[in-house]
Structures are given as structure tokens and as C-alpha cells.
């Protein structure tokens, strides 16, 4: 009887394993890494968990300020022990003001830059990165409630960051240009040569399909071409950091250094009205046809 029961349980085990395995495999095959759809439950969980991520980031910044301020205090005390107490207070104020000043400058720079664009925009803060280092995705604290849409362009004053891949009412996941799933139709500003820029490794990107005969040089700036209906034309993507040109073949291999320093990214701008309803309808029609 025990053997019979054990056999039955083993059969159930195998069946359950197989069912979930096949379900996962089919879902993986059909998975779209270019645009993510979220269910009501997923939206709810993301909206519930992300404030915690936001809180962790704020706490880290707070602790960082205290630590930095402490170091400032130690430095001041070494310079003048008798005035240490007074200096500590002053240093604290100076540090706070300095932080405010830097933030102010950064925000002014962002606003000043975004005024060049006619699109509506919202400013967002980064609250987290993707939990897998295979993907270069960041999470921002603005969602559909703030006018952000799927595939909205995300940028900074320095250049292009990526586009909105997954969206909830308060948060959005941005597929950065460092991710290999994000392909940007780029243009070498000087020579007007077309190519596709895509994430390659860590903080590097490659520009593909540029003809070998194109006279690209190191430091050439790459901007968005506007083709593909995802990014507006003329946004800075990066600059050429390495060129491999063989004596044979059709194309040359170009390595691109992103214009944005992703390691120091704190705030971004989301262009909320880049894609018109007309364009969206065109996209939907094309998708349906395919």
C-alpha cells in the first residue's frame, strides 16, 4: 500500500514538474523583451513594493550625507580644535547648502535643456535597478498617473537614457540604451552615417551596420536619427570610443561610450507626448497585421 502511495506521489511530482516546466518554456519562447505588459496584480505589487525601494534609496542618501558631514567635521576639528564645535555647525550648514546648490544646478540644467524640446515632460527620480545584472533596466518614481506612457523617451541633459518598458500608475521601468534588447537607430553627427546602436557589455554599446568605407573617427558624436518612432531626432546617444575596421567585409565595428554616466544617474526627464495617438494607432495596426 505504501509502495502504491509512493508511486502515485511520484507520478504527481513528475506531472507537476512537467506542467510547470512546459508552461515556463512556452512563456519564455513567447516572451517579449522589448515591451512589457503588466496585469492588475503585478501593477498592484510593483506599486506596493517600489515605495520601499524609494525609501531605501532615501535612507542611503541620508546616511551618506551624515557620513560625509561627519568627515567634514573631523577635518574641521583638525584645523582648529578650539573652534571645532562652531565649525561643526557651520560645516553642516555649508554641506546642506552645497547639496541644495548642486541639486539646484542639476535641476536647472535639466529644465533648461528640456525647454529646447516641444514635448511635454515630467521629471523623475531613479529608485532602483533591475534585480538581474543581465538586464540594464532602471525604475523611476513616475507612472501613468503622471502622464508617462509605454515607450516614452527617457533622457537627461547629457543625452538619451532609454524608453519606458513597463508601466504602473506610480512607477515605470526604463529599458536603458545599455541593454542589448534596446536598439537605437543612430546617426553619426559629422558624417550622417546610419547605424543601429545597442547595448553590448556593462556600460558599453556597439554601433552596427555602418559601412566600412564611412570615415568614422574616434570621438564622433552619435545622435538619434528619429527613425523607428521611438525616440525623437537629435538626442545625443554617445561618442565613438573604438573602431575596428578590417581590410575585408562590409561593415566596421564601432564601440560607443554612452553620453550619460549611468553610474551617477539620479534624475531623468521623461518625454510624455512624443508618440502621438496617430502614430500609436499606426503601430497597433502594424502589430495586428504581423
Amino acid at each position, binding site marked *: 500500500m505504501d509502495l502504491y502511495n509512493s508511486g502515485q*506521489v511520484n507520478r*504527481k*511530482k513528475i506531472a*507537476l*514538474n512537467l*506542467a*510547470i*516546466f512546459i508552461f*515556463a*518554456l512556452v*512563456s*519564455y*519562447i513567447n*516572451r517579449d*523583451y522589448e515591451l*512589457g505588459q503588466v496585469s492588475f496584480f*503585478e501593477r498592484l*505589487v*510593483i506599486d506596493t*513594493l517600489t515605495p*520601499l*525601494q*524609494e525609501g*531605501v*534609496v532615501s535612507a*542611503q*542618501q541620508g546616511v551618506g550625507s551624515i557620513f560625509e558631514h561627519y568627515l567634514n567635521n573631523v577635518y574641521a576639528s583638525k584645523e582648529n580644535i578650539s573652534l571645532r564645535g562652531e565649525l561643526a555647525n557651520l560645516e553642516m550648514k555649508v554641506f546642506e547648502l552645497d547639496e541644495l546648490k548642486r541639486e539646484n544646478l542639476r535641476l536647472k540644467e535639466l529644465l533648461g535643456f528640456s525647454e529646447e524640446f516641444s514635448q511635454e515632460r515630467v521629471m523623475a527620480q*531613479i*529608485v*532602483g*535597478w*533591475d*534585480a*538581474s*545584472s*543581465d*538586464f540594464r*533596466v*532602471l*525604475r523611476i518614481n513616475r507612472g501613468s498617473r503622471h502622464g508617462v506612457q509605454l515607450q516614452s523617451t527617457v533622457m537627461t541633459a547629457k543625452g538619451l537614457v532609454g524608453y519606458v*518598458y*513597463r508601466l504602473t500608475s506610480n512607477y515605470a*521601468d526604463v*529599458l536603458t540604451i545599455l541593454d*542589448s534588447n534596446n536598439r537605437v537607430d543612430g546617426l553619426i553627427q559629422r558624417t550622417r552615417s546610419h547605424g543601429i546602436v545597442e547595448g*553590448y*557589455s*556593462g*556600460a558599453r554599446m556597439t554601433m552596427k551596420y555602418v559601412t566600412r568605407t564611412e570615415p568614422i573617427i574616434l570621438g564622433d558624436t552619435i545622435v538619434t536619427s528619429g527613425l523607428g518612432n521611438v525616440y525623437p531626432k537629435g538626442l545625443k546617444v554617445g561618442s565613438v570610443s573604438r573602431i575596428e575596421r578590417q581590410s575585408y567585409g562590409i561593415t566596421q565595428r564601432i564601440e560607443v561610450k554612452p553620453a550619460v554616466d*549611468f*553610474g*551617477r544617474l539620479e534624475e531623468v526627464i521623461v518625454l510624455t507626448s512624443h508618440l502621438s495617438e496617430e502614430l500609436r494607432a499606426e503601430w497597433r495596426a502594424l502589430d495586428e497585421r504581423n
Partner: protein
Amino acid sequence: MRSQLKDLILPLLITLFIFLGLNIASTALLPAFGLSTYILPFNVLFVLYLGFKLQTLWLPVMIFIVQYFFSFFSIEGWELGTIAGILICVLISYLRDLIHLSSAPMTILVTQIFQFVWFVIVSVLIYFKTGDMVYIAERFWRFVPESIFISLMAPLAFLVLDKFWKLKDGVSLGEEV
């Protein structure tokens, strides 16, 4: 018999709670310190724990749940980890007699080995989809430090999780099932 579904719910909820906490810290805190290239894959650690310690019928469901919650933090989704997790747990079930997590060095070693198996499975799946070997090689160089860190964390993490699953050394849950 503590291997009934109702007995698994509470420890699983606690495990998920810890998992979510670690993921929040990993995705928010490490990048805030400028460490955005390496992210600790806690899903691998938790799925391996379930695989090593649980022999219940509901193991694939629990792997799916852990991976599903992981997908809220990553666009990788739940699929890759679920496939790798199930295959590894099947492998563990055949090798169970050879796996002894009796000491910290053994736990570190075994976790490292199975993380490598996980890496191979996921890389094969990615290669089938992308056909990009350079990307796999680049993944490997990220995998090395990340997996070592996870392996080093494993003895402590397993010890903590054992408390919630009420497991003692060398005993796995659900052997009667």
C-alpha cells in the same frame, strides 16, 4: 506530517518576505553606491535552498512563486529561473545522497557548483534565443563574482531559513511525501 500544503504556506510566506527585503536592498542600495554592474541574484539562492531542503510535491510551485515575485524586480521575468530551478531540483533529487550541507565550506562549495549548473542552463536558453556567444562570455564574467558572493552568503542564509522552515542539520522537509 509537516509536508502538507498548509504546513508549507507560513514558512513560504516568511521566505518570500525575506526574499523581497533582500531584493529591495539589492536593487536600490547597491546601485545607489554606484555598483550597478553587479546585482546579487537572490532568486538563485532561494530556489537552491528550496531544492536542497525540500522534497515536497509542491516544490515546482514554490519555485514558480519565488520566481514570480522576482519578476517584479526584473524584466527577466519568471520563466528562465523557473526552468533552471526545476531542472536543478530534479538533478538534486537524484544526487541527494551525495549532497551534504553539514558544514559551511561544503554548503559554499555545493551552492557554487549548482549556481554554475544554473548559469549553464540559463546561458543555453539565452543562446537558443539570441545566438550571441559574446554575450554569454560577458555574462560569465559577471556570474563569477556574483555567484561567489551568493555562495559565501549561503551558510548564513540557509541557517536563517532553516529556523523558519524548522529544519535541523541534514534533514530535509517532506521526505515522507
